[in-house]
């Protein structure tokens, strides 16, 4: 029992140190807080029943694609965000300094309002 308790305690302490060390080293801005900050201005303009398309400049196979889409949905709720551009309004989540205009034109997306911080609202002229 004593050995079991000692092992349990050591594991718990070790994992706690691990957790603290990871969090104190972590300086990345990715996460809910950064998305809430980036999308806050845009969210104020949305009606609850809005359905938006979604486009990102992440490479297709980038593992962060799915999580960024989910975070966008979480931030913009109760608007519904769909993982395609087949909607009249499309929110563009871009990471470069300026949105890629050529890529937008190729998809027939017309910028309506740039909210800054990588958030752009577009109209889909193909719809």
């Amino acid at each position, binding site marked *: *029992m004593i050995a079991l*308790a000692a092992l349990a305690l050591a594991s*718990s302490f070790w994992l706690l140190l691990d957790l603290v060390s990871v969090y104190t080293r972590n300086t990345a801005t990715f996460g809910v807080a950064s998305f809430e900050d980036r999308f806050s201005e845009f969210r104020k303009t949305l009606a*609850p029943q809005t359905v938006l398309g979604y486009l990102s400049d992440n490479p297709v196979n980038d593992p962060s694609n799915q999580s960024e*889409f*989910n975070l966008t949905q979480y931030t913009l709720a109760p608007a519904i965000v769909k993982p395609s551009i087949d909607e009249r309004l499309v929110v563009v989540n871009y990471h470069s300094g300026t949105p890629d205009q050529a890529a937008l034109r190729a998809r027939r997306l017309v910028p309506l309002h740039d909210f800054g911080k990588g958030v752009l609202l577009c109209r889909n002229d193909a719809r």
Partner: protein
Amino acid sequence: MTFVCIALVWLTGFSIARFLFPTPSRWSLHSVFLFSLGTGLGIGIASCVYFLSLVLFGPSPLILAGFGAIVSAAAILRGMSAKSRGIALEWAAGPATPGYLTGLLLLTAAFAVTMFVVHSLEKPHGEWDAWSIWNLKARFLFRGSERWKNALSTQMPNSHPDYPLLLPSIVAMCWTLARAESISAPIAVAFLFTLGACGLLISSIGILRGKTQALGAGIVVLATSSFIQLGAMQYADVPMSFYILATLALLCLQDRFSSELRFSIAAGLAAGFAPWTKNEGWLFLAAVLLARLTAILRFDSRAVLGPQFLRFAAAALPSVALTAFFKLRFAPPNDLFAQKASDLAAHVAVFGRWIITLEGFVKMLFLMGGFLLPIGLILGLYWFLVRFHVEERDRTPVATVLLTIGLMLAGEFAVYVVFPPDIVTQLNVSLERLCMQLWPAGLLAFFLVANPPQLVTLRPVRSKHDVKSQKAKLRVQPPKPAHPPVRLN
């Protein structure tokens, strides 16, 4: 305001638990048991009240407050006015418990709470499932107002729109009553469930097997960092583990105190909230009913079957009916079950899927929990040293717990083989969480059957007379010469 709301929810649950098992006025193990049990009962009932109010009257904070106040006041009045009657839940007899074991438990609890707090400070919105599913739905319920049904829209397949609403409902209820979307609501709910599950395990084993076993189980569960972190991540697996543990622990207590059929009522209440928490709750409900039936028919008198099952079913019925209503009226079909029958048959025919699933389950036995050494091996070694012993009176409860866990694992194994198209990813992202749902119940089973170790050296008790005479014997006396002294002159 959020904390007032959470406190009222907990107080409602505690009052219902106290109404069922009135506690003596002094602080005791009985109180710890009720404090822990009240957590899940209160949250379960409050989430049902919120959802009913939303469906019947729409998203009106005033009506919700009135509806909630009536339920809460009724529960608190009945619970607090209940006179102490029936049994008092106390530590079972067992070997003496050394003081340092309590110290170790408190230290592990301090580490667990610190880990929870550190995680919650760093990620207050929780992890992936929290912001992709549970808190997202809570936002839709709260922010969506009249359009709350958008939370279940099939246009957001990633949010699993068919998932039940216990967690989103309780969080949205706190936000609605507080009129503010505070992130402290989901954190507080997660904290209550995590600590509640640990408290329930410790108190249940304490009542059934004594203090040493209870403290041992408590140290192991509190040191299971995966379990504590899963709680802090605000996933629904820890609430699910709470309801599984509560149901099984209450059924064990039912067998120990067979004349007190209120344990079956409480077990039914807890079991009924499992399908309202996660879809696996349906599997649990089927498993526990089948296991209980088998255990009673095999080891107990058939006469107890009717009264126990009747009370269990009556208590589980309201929340099960609400979940069924939600599933039939609002929720779209589950994505796994919406697949074609021919695809599912093809999955079953692939032998590799069986092997991959089996490998995943065996590996998990050694990897789960986040311990420095594989916990499966450690518990195996512990068993080798203390061995198992099931007393005759414990056969029915032990069979109930083990059969339920076995049926759950078999059911989950079958789900992995039959349903997910990408079985490897599915195993990687979900198997440890499913194991954590069963982990507290598994520890309940383990410490129910393990022999309690003798940690304090026993000394024979002496009477005063014995002590005096022994002291007299030990008094220093001049040694008698072995031979008479020799006169030299």
